[in-house]
């Protein structure tokens, strides 16, 4: 369980971290010195992660992500505005009617879209958890949903109509099969509405279904922290941290950190939220800084101090053996702090705000209902006014 090195950069497309701690068993042991071919190169877990579809297709820099959202939004706006223009040209509208359209039939901004997507992504989580699905299935459903709306606008496909579809596909993809009929029954939906957009969803996901979530790295760090800080951490306490981090990870999956950071980085960020001192100590021990090669002085007994020295030395040797540059804990901490602040940032929409945006979304797609509403209102107004006059 020593295999938890974390890549140094995150926002640029360069060095992702190991995704799981199981890597050790699969890693090639160095062959006998003389038998190595001239081009011998060990494939690291970071190399493997770089080949994953999650990294190739769904990891972005902040600018790339922003650009992607602006693009998707702009495409939908162009479509909506074209439609609005047609409506205005086709029907003979009164001045009042035109004014209503100008006031109320307005496409959503990118920010409004994002707010709505995140609002419904939270719904995906709540519904999936209500269906008692395993944590990984819930996480996959959330990530499918959010990825779908990087490619599609809520002005083209109603997020409500895709909620059950993402959960159902996530079940199948995570090998947690439920028949569509029993799923429909449990979710109070119908077979047709669940399957209607399944292809569209798969296509929008670019047929990339394998998700690396931060839960496995959490288990790895949970074990490794106990190993590195042996005798200095309370097992019960670690158990509590584990459970709380699991929840924090699910919350983190609802944010953009999944596009910027690798799963183990996100895990470390959630651990940092729980216990900053613990993580800092663990990382400094695990990856002692190069300039400051002095062993950290332990405040407890001598015996432990000796233990520390041993582990530290061992780590150093391992790093050298591997021919990898030792990881700089300070640099790593800076990355994780950045990630942490992003996890803590989001302020989700209130139901009220979401309703308002949803209404706006509806009217920009269905401008004629605005006009009908106006007409109805005027019809109601007129008789009432007449009545009043009579009195």
């Amino acid at each position: 369980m020593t295999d938890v090195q974390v890549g140094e950069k995150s926002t640029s497309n360069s060095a992702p971290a190991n995704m799981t701690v199981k890597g050790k068993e699969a890693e090639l042991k160095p062959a006998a010195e003389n038998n190595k071919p001239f081009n011998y190169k060990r494939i690291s877990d970071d190399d493997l992660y770089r080949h994953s579809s999650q990294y190739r297709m769904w990891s972005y820099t902040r600018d790339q992500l922003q650009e992607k959202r602006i693009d998707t939004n702009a495409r939908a706006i162009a479509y909506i505005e074209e439609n609005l223009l047609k409506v205005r040209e086709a029907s003979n509208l009164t001045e009042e009617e035109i004014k209503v359209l100008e006031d109320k039939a307005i496409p959503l901004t990118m920010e409004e879209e994002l707010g709505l997507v995140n609002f419904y992504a939270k719904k995906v989580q709540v519904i999936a958890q209500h269906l008692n699905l395993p944590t990984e299935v819930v996480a996959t459903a959330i990530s499918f949903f959010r990825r779908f709306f990087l490619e599609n606008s809520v002005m083209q496909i109603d997020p409500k109509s895709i909620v059950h579809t993402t959960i159902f596909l996530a079940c199948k993809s995570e090998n947690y099969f439920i028949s569509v009929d029993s799923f429909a029954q449990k979710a109070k939906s119908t077979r047709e509405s669940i399957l209607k957009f399944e292809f569209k969803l798969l296509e929008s996901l670019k047929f990339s279904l394998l998700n690396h979530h931060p839960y496995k790295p959490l288990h790895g760090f949970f074990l490794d922290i106990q190993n590195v800080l042996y005798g200095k951490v309370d097992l019960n306490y670690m158990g509590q941290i584990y459970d709380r981090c699991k929840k924090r990870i699910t919350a983190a999956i609802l944010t953009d950190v999944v596009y910027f950071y690798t799963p183990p980085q996100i895990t470390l960020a959630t651990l940092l939220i729980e216990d900053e001192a613990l993580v800092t100590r663990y990382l400094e021990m695990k990856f002692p800084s190069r300039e400051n090669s002095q062993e950290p002085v332990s405040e407890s007994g001598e015996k432990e101090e000796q233990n520390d020295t041993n582990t530290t030395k061992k780590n150093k040797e391992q790093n050298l053996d591997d021919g990898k540059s030792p990881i700089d804990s300070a640099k790593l901490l800076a990355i994780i702090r950045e990630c942490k602040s992003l996890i803590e940032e989001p302020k989700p929409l209130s139901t009220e705000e979401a309703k308002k945006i949803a209404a706006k979304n509806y009217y920009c797609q269905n401008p004629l209902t605005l006009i009908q509403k106006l007409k109805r209102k005027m019809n109601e107004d007129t008789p009432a006014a007449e009545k009043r006059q009579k009195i």
Partner: protein
Amino acid sequence: MEYTKEKKVGEGTYAVVYLGSQHSTGRKIAVKEIKTSEFKDGLDMSAIREVKYLQEMQHPNVIELVDIFMAYDNLNLVLEFLPTDLEVVIKDKSILFTPADIKAWILMTLRGVYHCHRNFILHRDLKPNNLLFSPDGQIKVADFGLARAIPAPHEILTSNVVTRWYRAPELLFGAKHYTSAIDIWSVGVIFAELMLRIPYLPGQNDVDQMEVTFRALGTPTDRDWPEVSSFMTYNKLQIYPPPSRDELRKRFIAASEYALDFMCGMLTMNPQKRWTAVQCLESDYFKELPSPSDPSTIKIHS
């Protein structure tokens, strides 16, 4: 259309396979058309698994997923064109192959399997029929319709995987937990089959498969596989002694001592002691002479 379907070459339970070509490059390809309309639960699980795992793997010894597209409500997987498979080659008695050829094939197979395992993927259906040949003689691990992620320790799995003759003893016992060791067992059986040129453990049915397996390799006992006797079906078993080295030498006449070590490593009953893909790849069998043949020079067509 970027791809043409020229000739139907196969039909399975959930897909039809066509040969065709890619317009822009002229490259020969195979198109696996998933019959979606046949499934009442939407996209079929096998199709989902195949798409999911092939997307993650780029390796010379794993079949390449070139593209995916939708047409007429069908899902189409565009795969690299692989003209034949190991089963065909083994059965075609007019094809002669040498120990060096076998070494080359099993080496390529293990590289592909190792790539799956280091990506935390279990194949769960390795057999000669799923080891395809590229035109230049490379072995490609194919058919990921039964694949899954390497499970977490507590996960309960179905033991009803892998085609019978290639099924590891823990699966025969109906184990609910197993590891990548099941794939290595299959490779071991394939290796034996390559040397014998007939199936090594051809059970008639699931019960007979245990009989055949343990008669050939010895019934596992608690001594070398702790608590194996606690499997439900264990009590009904006939206890066979493991084969002596001489018996193995007689059965596998052309095999070197290292080749036998290599085979026994893969066909170890206890999955925890069975060799891993890395151990196999580093075995002395690959270091001794003859060196593996150059795959492109092996004649695989009669």
